């Protein structure tokens, strides 16, 4: 299936969803006023990918900031990944946070406690 690629802006993250490689990336800032609009194509892409996922899907989430409006949409994305993980294929979510950013680590742990997919917390040391 076709890859999904979206350039980042001041309020929205860059997105690279590659179905051939099984690598899904969300990076940057996610603080739009209307997050549903931004995340809709991401959720739709995953819906299609969940029909024929690779044996292993690696998910890299590296956010500098995200607002509470995005937090619900990110949960929707993770719920799609959870459904894939429940099937035969494996999903790993790599949650990146900057050194000392306890809030971002905690946000990752919040998701980890809700979503039944293995998380890896990765500290970015500058």
């Amino acid at each position, binding site marked *: 299936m076709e890859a999904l690629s979206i350039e980042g802006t*001041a*309020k929205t993250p860059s997105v690279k969803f590659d179905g051939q490689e099984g690598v899904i990336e969300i990076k940057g800032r996610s*603080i739009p*006023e*209307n*997050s*549903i609009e931004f995340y809709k194509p991401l959720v739709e892409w995953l819906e299609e990918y969940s029909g024929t996922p690779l044996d292993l899907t690696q998910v890299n989430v590296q956010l500098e*900031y995200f*607002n*509470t*409006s995005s*937090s*619900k*949409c990110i*949960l929707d994305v993770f719920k799609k990944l959870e459904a894939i993980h429940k099937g035969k294929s494996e999903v790993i979510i790599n949650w990146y946070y*900057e050194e*000392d*950013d306890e*809030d*971002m680590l*905690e946000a990752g742990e*919040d998701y980890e*406690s*809700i979503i039944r997919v293995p998380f890896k917390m990765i500290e970015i040391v500058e």
Partner: protein
Amino acid sequence: MSFDVNEYYSKLNGGDIVMSFKGNISSELISNVLEVVESKMDEYNESSKIRKKVYNVLVESLQNLYHHIEELPDEMNKEYESKFGILVVRREENMYKISTGNFISQGKVDVLRNKIDKINSMGKEELKDMYKFILNHQRLSEKGGGGLGLVDIARKTGNQLEYTFEKFDDIYYFFILDVYIDFSQ
């Protein structure tokens, strides 16, 4: 006597102001404010921890205004723009103080007051549980608000949300929210 918004705003504008604004809260305005405050914090050489907390709280405060501001009736539009709000960001000796203000109709005052009082009565773990519950069980409104903003602000600052409702006229109150971000985290 009714609450004087303009007088309140000019009083707030003393001391070390990082940013202040009074008027229509639009998406563009939010982008501009964030850009200005971010570059000011660079000038102040704030630690990345403080920068992140201030930025996050600012996003939630402004987007709370953006999503929840009530459209004002025509007779008030002469003086106040329809999505009228105020914002003042101050840098004090030990903290940042972010103040926002907006009109709220009388009928909504109690719900908001109860919500804030409830948040203020909660400890760190309770706030975390409340956040996760709302995250997992409440859908986003059409406007995009999720009811998580104030909980998130309380969690990230670790401080009480200070507020007042000032009577403006028979229909409206002016809601003022002060959020503090301590330097010593």
